[in-house]
């Protein structure tokens, strides 16, 4: 085990081409899916936070349910949609990075929306009351609201990115973990471990944990500092 660890470090230091290829696919998939989830999820979360009605209460419950959607179930749904007899087979997304992105967007968007809704909801009343009291227009009040939530929007993105990086169920079902094409860090760790090629699995594991560490440093550094 000690030598496998040392070999793993060597792979990282020398920039093993296979390692870099897997990292590249992972980052492409994760960055795209988390950014897309943020673009879709942030306005949706803001919509859920503003106002209240029976319909909105139902939508909030549905969104919160989707936040806990098991990744393999999501993968199964996407597989059934994109496979050769599925209704979206014409999109040719099965066993592609794009298909994996779609699956992750479905998984992560409710999480982004839910975290923003939970954070923004208690702020809506005081922000609106203050804005109306100062004679502000609705667009201006909305801009103020977004400003108040900007840190939460960013941490929602980091949460989405972290979830996308760590996800294995949906991406393995939709992507197929094909070498040089759709193999990402999580599916590669599984594959190499099953093969007994621990150095590669350990190297990928170190990089994955390192990425999470970086994300948390970013989140901590960017904690709101109140400045003039």
């Amino acid at each position: 085990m000690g030598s496998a660890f040392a070999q793993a470090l060597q792979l990282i230091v020398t920039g093993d081409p296979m390692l870099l290829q897997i990292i590249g696919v992972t980052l492409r998939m994760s960055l795209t899916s988390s950014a897309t989830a943020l673009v879709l999820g942030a306005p949706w979360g803001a919509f859920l936070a503003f106002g209240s009605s029976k319909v909105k209460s139902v939508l909030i419950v549905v969104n919160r349910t989707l936040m806990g959607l098991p990744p393999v179930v999501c993968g199964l749904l996407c597989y059934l949609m994109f496979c050769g007899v599925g209704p979206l087979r014409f999109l040719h997304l099965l066993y592609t990075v794009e298909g994996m992105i779609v699956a992750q967007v479905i998984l992560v968007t409710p999480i982004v929306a839910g975290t923003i809704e939970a954070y923004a909801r208690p702020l809506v009343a005081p922000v609106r009351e203050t804005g109306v009291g100062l004679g502000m227009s609705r667009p201006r009040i909305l801009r103020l609201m977004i400003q108040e939530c900007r840190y939460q929007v960013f941490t929602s993105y980091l949460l989405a990115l972290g979830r996308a990086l760590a996800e294995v169920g949906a991406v393995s079902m939709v992507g197929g973990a094909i070498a040089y094409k759709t193999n990402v860090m999580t599916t590669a760790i599984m594959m190499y471990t099953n093969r007994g090629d621990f150095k590669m699995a350990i190297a990928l594991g170190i990089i994955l944990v390192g990425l999470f560490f970086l994300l948390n440093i970013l989140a901590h550094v960017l904690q709101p500092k109140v400045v003039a």
Partner: protein
Amino acid sequence: MRIRNLIVRYGATTALDIGELTLKRGVCYAVIGANGCGKSTLARCIAGVIKPTSGEVGLQPDDKVRYMPQRSYAFYGSTLSNVMLGVNATAHGKERARMLIDALNLTTVARQGAKQLSGGQTARMALARTLVGQGTWLVLDEPTAALDSGSMLAAEGLIRSYRDEFDAGVILITHSLKQAKRVSDQLVFMENGHVVEQGETKRLIDDPQTPALTRFLELFGA
């Protein structure tokens, strides 16, 4: 401002039910009453924060209402930038903001993050933010509740100046009868969502016309 048949209901509860209430610009009204009598609901209706269930507030088309809620909210940014939210960023606006910050003893924290202010400082910042812009009506919901006596007197002076400078009608919600006597021209006494009595402050406190106001004054003193 002519308030007519103004009703606000929350479910089965009637929070406000005012048949008629006429308020004039250039006059400071102190609205008093026990907790839950509808003072804040009235303030929020006048400010346009909530829509009444029925009836109207009767503002003129060119009326501008400046409203300070009971709980002050500080936005991200400095104390100065928070105050500037209440006015256009012109030279005059900045000058007025600076004047109010100085008058409310916020000079030392002007560049400090507003979210780091104490409760009293936040209330003073919120008052400055409300007073910095010109309006025809000033609605203040317990603006000095969190202030010490020195700051309270300074705030009361600024409120009176605002009334005089802009000929604004002032609606001041307060639990302090002493403050009502110091600051207001007229008293509006509310109970259970209704306006029970309205008139000149000193006259009403010295000689209440209704048993309800008499009971209130006995309980809370003047």
